[in-house]
Each structure stands twice: as C-alpha cells, then as structure tokens.
C-alpha cells in the first residue's frame, strides 16, 4: 500500500512543479515498480540510470531496497531521495534522507511513554531490521531510565496469525504495548487486541511510530482508535501549507482519500529536489546537493531542510492519538524542527524519563558520543 501512496504523492508533486510559474523547468517522471522484490531494486535503478539517463531517483520504502540502490547511486554519482523513516546508522553522500531519523520519531515516543504512561513495556514487532533496531533503542532508553522490557515478541513480515501474542498480552496485562509491526500483521494485531480488551473491559495503551491515516481505515474505525503515534506528519496539522495540500490531495484523489506520512514525505522529496535544482541552476548532482543544503522549504509538515552534515532532514517531531473518523489528534509537537541524528550520537540518556528514585543516586554521566554496542 505504501508504495502506491508514495507514487501518487510523487506524481502530484511533479505535476505541481510542472504547472508552476515558479520553476522554469519541468520534471519528466520515469516509473519503475520492483514490487518489493529486493534484488529487483538494483536492476530497476541500474536501468533508470543507464537507459533513461536519470540523475535523481525518488523512492525505496524499506531499508533492504535502499541498500540495493545505494551502491549504484554511489558508483554513478546520482542522488537517491529517500522518503521513508528508517532505523538510522547510515549516511551516504548520494542519498538525501527525507524521512525521520530515530531521534525524530522513536525517541519522542519513548520519552512520552516514560513521562506519562509506564516504565515497563511489552514490545511486539515484525521480524526485520527496523523493529530490531527500534527495539534496541527502546530497550536502551527504558532500561537506562530504570524501566523494564517485559517481553519482545516478533512476527514474520506479513504474518496474520496474532492470536498467541494477543493471548499473552491479555494474560500478562502490561501497562503499555509498543507496536512495531508493519502491514497486515499490525492491522490484524490491533483488531484482535481491541476485540480482546473490549470483551474484558480493559484498556491497554498502544504506541506506534509508523501508523498513518490510510492504515487507520484498513484497521477499521473501532480498533484503530486510541493508538499514540509518533510521526513528523499528520493530516490534521493546522498549517496553511497543509490545509492547502490536503485540499489539493482530495481534489486529485477523492474526498475520502487521505494523505499519509510516507506519501507526504515523497511529495517533500520532489519539492526539495525542485527547489535545489532552481537554486543550483542545473540538475547536476553535486550542484543540487550543495544547493539543497540548509535550503529551507515551508512544507505541509512544517519547515524542512537538509542538514549537510549527514544528508538527513530537519523535521518537526509530533505525537498524536488516533481518534474516531480515522484521523489523528495531535497533542504534542516540538518547538522547532529537530536536527537529524542518524547515529543517535547526541542522545543523552540521563535526561530521559528517569524514575525519581534512580535519578537521585546516580550522577549524570553525560552524553555518550558513540552508540557503543552493548
């Protein structure tokens, strides 16, 4: 589903650039769909560069697909504009990372959990790199704050059988569940857990750093309500840039269609690219990369600009709760766009969610610059 949302958003941005008087050039899109088959991304990318002579590639949702594309864009000096949030610990000169780095989506969510919900958490996720690394970050922050990971359960990607985990959650009744499942597994889990908790008259808070509006619809109106979600974009952001974007989106895709964080991020990729080309006066990769650096764009999700230190973007973290009507109600947003920290080298654990009794007897150890593998 995400690939489709991203393609729709990219094409919408391209059409807007092409009719805009602000840009004296037009984009010619060349579409390739490797269909999630990891090895096919290398071939598709090579084909785009060799046959279509493209300089800039927008796309890749999973890290596995991005890792296939990076060697080619590095060898041929092209730029990949990557829209998806990811687990961090990467920084290629030939990638502009427009999705959230872990400090922009995982850390705010865990901080909120420690400050307002619980120090003890049950983790459930899909068995792949994003969950592994997100869970590691969660574990590092939670244990440093004196909390506990009650369990870490993994399901294979796409696995819809969730009953055994729902049963375990119902038996153990954890104070909070962090859900890093993706796709059908996540939808099935949220429906089944909602059914079980409703029957038992229970409320178990659920946290996510990936849920988006189109997914709320797929989950269903009842089961999708109440999930605390961390994201740099929600449809409900009340900025004029976003109100206009949502109206254009609905005019183009239908009144009952909703934008999503990954779609919007793809739109932002194209807009950042267009602005960098305009500023550089050419589509040349080195010139565009220089022009994109620190060039502020007032996007629907707020001001966005590329940090030339690591080619990731300044973004505004937000927390929201999913509400009836398949929407999110935002209850927190950062005061200003946050610097991307893909290696979490500025993460100061001593400042996050310390339990009162442990915060007194331990002197602050300060920031640990290298995320040491423990």
């Amino acid at each position, binding site marked *: 589903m995400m690939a489709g949302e991203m393609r729709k958003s990219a094409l919408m941005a391209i059409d807007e650039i092409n009719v805009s008087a602000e840009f004296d050039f037009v984009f010619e899109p060349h579409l390739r769909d490797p269909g999630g088959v990891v*090895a096919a991304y290398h071939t598709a990318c090579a084909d785009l560069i060799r046959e279509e002579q493209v300089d800039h590639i927008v796309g890749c949702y999973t*890290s596995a697909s991005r*890792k296939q594309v990076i060697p080619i864009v590095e060898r041929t000096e092209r730029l990949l504009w990557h829209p998806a949030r990811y687990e*961090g*610990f990467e920084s290629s000169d030939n990638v502009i990372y427009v999705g959230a780095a872990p400090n922009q989506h995982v850390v705010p969510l865990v901080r909120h959990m420690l400050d307002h919900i619980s120090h003890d958490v049950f983790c459930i996720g899909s*068995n792949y*790199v994003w969950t592994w*690394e997100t869970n*590691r970050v969660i574990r590092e922050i939670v244990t440093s704050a004196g909390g506990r990971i009650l369990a870490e359960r993994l399901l294979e990607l796409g696995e819809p059988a969730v009953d055994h985990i729902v049963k375990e959650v119902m038996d153990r009744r954890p104070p909070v569940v962090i859900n890093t499942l993706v796709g059908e597994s996540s939808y099935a889990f949220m429906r089944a857990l909602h059914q079980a908790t409703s029957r038992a008259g229970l409320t178990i808070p659920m946290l996510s750093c990936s849920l988006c509006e189109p997914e709320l619809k797929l989950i269903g109106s009842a089961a999708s309500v109440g999930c605390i979600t961390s994201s740099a974009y929600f449809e409900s952001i009340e900025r004029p840039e976003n109100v206009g974007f949502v109206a254009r989106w609905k005019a183009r895709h239908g009144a009952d269609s909703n934008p999503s964080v990954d779609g919007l991020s793809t739109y932002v990729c194209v807009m950042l690219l267009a602005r960098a080309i305009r500023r550089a006066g050419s589509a040349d990769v080195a010139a565009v990369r220089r022009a994109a650096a620190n060039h502020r764009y007032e996007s629907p999700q707020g001001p966005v600009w590329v940090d030339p230190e690591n080619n990731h973007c300044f973004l505004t973290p937000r927390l929201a709760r999913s509400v009836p009507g398949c929407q999110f109600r935002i209850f927190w947003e950062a005061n200003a766009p946050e610097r991307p920290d893909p290696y979490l080298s500025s993460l100061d654990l001593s400042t996050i969610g310390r339990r009162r009794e442990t915060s007194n007897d331990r002197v602050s150890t300060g920031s640990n610059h290298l995320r040491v*593998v423990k």
Partner: protein
Amino acid sequence: MVMKDEREIAIVRRQLGRLGITVSEHDPDDPPPPKDAADVVVFDADAIPIKSDLAAMWKTGAPIIALIGTETPSRLKWLLELQPASFLVKPLRSAGLYTALVVAFDCAQRRAEEANYVDRLEVRVRSRRVVFAAVLQVMNGHNLSEPDAFALIRQTAMRHRTTIERLSADIIALGGMPNRTTRSA
C-alpha cells in the same frame, strides 16, 4: 560461502577462485555443516534474522569473515556474538577479500595459540597444590628450607628433562625423590 545475494556470491566465488581456494556454497537458512568442512567461512551478516537460533551454531567452527550491509548496533551486537575473525563492508569489490582472508587466518591462528597457552597455564594452576605438597615432603624428608627444597625439585626436574609439575606428582606417588637414574620424561 554462506550468502544469498547472487551478485555478491559471483564476486566472492571469482575472487576466491583466483586465490586457489575451493569454494562450497551453503544456504544461510540451513544449519551449518560439520566443524571441519571448511577452513574459513564467508558469512553474509544480513542473511540471517537477528533472533534466529541458527547464528549460535556457526560460532565454534572455522574463522568467519562477516559481510556487513546493515551497520545498526542491534545487527553489530548480533555479529559480535559470532566472533568474526575479519569483515568486509558491502557492496563487495574484488579488492579487499584477500586482506580479509589474511587477517582472518592470522586472527584464527592467534586465537588458537592463545587458547593453547591458556590451557597450559590452567594445567599449571591446577597442579600448584601438587607442587606445594611435593615441596613439603622434600622439606621434611631432606630437612631443607622451602627455597632449598623447591630448588632441588627444579634442578632434578631439569636433569630428568621433565616438568616441575610432573616430578612433583612422582614425588608424592613414591613418597620421596625418585631414583636419580630413572627418567620419567
């Protein structure tokens, strides 16, 4: 080669062939082959899920050259459990594999030598009690001070071309210094 990506397999196979190394390919989803089936394992660290039991089964065999794509701490921690002797960062090129092999073999040899050395030290630590008992026996039997008793045992062991530990065991077994003409080595 415990790898999945066909392009990378082709690069490694070709380069190992040039170096005169016989290659066998192994599916990462299968359990490892017997311990002595290979002298070195080229192992794609991204090919096995982190929470899989398969990883531990590779640990005690031949030295591992890890191919690294994902540099997340969770993946690197998992990798350290395998105690790789060397590594290469993907995407692979023909250059680098030779260095990785040399470092891996050197690392494996040093590890074997160190393990051997530790084994010998452990034997000596374990026989400390025996040596102490032998020194006491010689002190009493020959009316010697402790330094003199130990010196006598050491000299006798050298003359008999045996170790202090082994001679001490003989002293305790015989109830005194062994006959000077016998050689226990």
